[in-house]
């Protein structure tokens, strides 16, 4: 029996609310198939299943908010036979206490890695009633969950859930960001490096390339940057991966998280997968698609959960340099500033060329400044060779 669990769609996600099942018992599921939509603080995310099999039992009803890791459904592996008939609708939490954990109407999922504010008394009461405090909305001072919130949650466990409003979402997202960034600044000893990148070659090359194409096929300089970072990250593995527990875990592939600001505030950094292996056109189309879906709050679980390194580009807004905050558990973030004409010394002569500031914010637990400098230099080097990036 295969267990399909609520995925962690980011460092700041503790729980998610099941919005929609896209499969039913008996359906065959292929690897990577989107099987459910989960509401998180950031977006309604399509969740893929990475197992092949047949849906045996859906364990979490619609509207339920459950912790990350909770089994959402069971699947029979190919060839497996059910040992007993499926139960109707069981409540599966890790703790699985006698009274089922309750959820509450209008609950936006719990915010984040910052511990939620739950009054000590409410926490104790929730434990005794088997209420999941992470799924209870707080009405106490500063939004804390109070005894009465827990009692209401226990009493109205059966009521149907409604979707979070945009305002709820904005608040929740703010909290998520606050939690993730606070955690980052609290836990990650950042160091920062900057390097000036002459963009002359790359931009000229890109302009020529774009001139031959329709506007719909045009490629933005940001795509060159993503590719350069991905290729460099392949060579400098200590910037591509996660710090977990007390150790660095390098990632096998390079999935570049792209920091996307949302209109009206907020930020997500979903991944483009396997950037190092993709051609520029493919990356451009991925990027366009990703930005559109991020702004429509419609991202996939894998995009949310598995960036291995993040790129942020505030140059569009006109800043020269950006020193980023690493998105835990990642260990590095590469920033790009505004391309502008600057006076440079090149080959012993003074020239006016277009340059930009590339920066690296990196986790000193995972890497050191010397390697960081080499990594940044490699990115610079790659941006001088646009045809290498094309491959």
């Amino acid at each position, binding site marked *: 029996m295969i267990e399909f669990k609520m995925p962690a769609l980011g460092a700041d996600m503790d729980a998610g609310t099941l919005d929609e099942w896209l499969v039913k018992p008996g359906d065959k599921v292929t690897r990577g198939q989107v099987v459910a939509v989960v509401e998180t603080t950031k977006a309604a995310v399509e969740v893929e299943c990475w197992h092949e099999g047949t849906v045996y039992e859906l364990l979490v009803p619609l509207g339920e908010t459950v912790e990350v890791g909770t089994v959402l459904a069971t699947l029979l592996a190919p060839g497996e036979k059910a040992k007993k008939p499926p139960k109707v609708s069981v409540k599966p939490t890790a703790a699985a206490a006698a009274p089922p954990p309750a959820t509450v109407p209008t609950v936006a999922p719990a915010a984040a890695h910052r511990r939620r504010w739950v009054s000590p008394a409410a926490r104790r009461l929730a434990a005794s009633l088997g209420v999941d405090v992470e799924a209870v909305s707080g009405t106490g001072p500063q939004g804390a969950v109070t005894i009465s919130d827990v009692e209401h949650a226990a009493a109205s466990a059966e009521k149907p859930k409604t979707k979070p409003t945009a305002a709820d979402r904005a608040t929740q997202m703010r909290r998520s960001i606050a939690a993730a960034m606070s955690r980052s600044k609290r836990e990650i000893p950042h160091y920062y490096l900057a390097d000036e990148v002459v963009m002359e070659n790359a931009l000229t090359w890109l*302009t020529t390339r*774009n*001139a031959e*194409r*329709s*506007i*719909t096929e*045009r490629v*933005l*300089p*940001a795509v060159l940057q993503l590719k350069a970072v991905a290729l460099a990250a392949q060579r400098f593995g200590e910037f591509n991966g996660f710090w977990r527990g007390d150790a660095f875990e390098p990632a096998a592939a390079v999935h570049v998280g792209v920091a996307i*600001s949302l*209109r*009206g505030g907020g930020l997500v950094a979903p991944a483009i997968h396997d950037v190092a292996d993709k051609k520029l056109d493919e990356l451009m189309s991925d*990027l*366009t698609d990703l*930005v*559109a879906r991020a702004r429509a709050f419609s991202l996939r679980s894998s995009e949310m959960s598995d960036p291995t390194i993040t790129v942020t*580009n505030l140059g*569009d*807004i006109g800043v020269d340099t950006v020193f980023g905050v690493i998105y835990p558990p990642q260990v590095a973030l590469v920033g790009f500033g505004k391309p502008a004409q600057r006076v440079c010394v090149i080959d012993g002569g003074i020239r006016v060329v277009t340059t930009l500031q590339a920066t690296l914010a990196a986790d000193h637990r995972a890497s050191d400044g010397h390697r960081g400098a080499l990594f940044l230099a490699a990115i610079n080097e790659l941006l001088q060779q646009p045809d290498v990036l094309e491959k």
Partner: protein
Amino acid sequence: MTARIDIREEVLSVLTTIAPEVDAGDVEDDVLLRDQVDLDSMDWLNFLVGIHKRLHVDIPERDYASLRTLADVVDYVDKHALKPN
């Protein structure tokens, strides 16, 4: 003139699909568009792609830099779209 007004409305309509928070009535013709509306390079590209698709205007790379205000874009569309191919 009627055509120009229609074009302007279409352009604004494309703009507000990219930036839904913008009130079309507030956009000024002769102020840099990217100063009035928060548009990054991806938004800008999407905006021009939208113009291209909606109004059937091709915008080659070399003309990019000349499109800075709403009036620029309207003029550009006015000039290029009405020309028979």
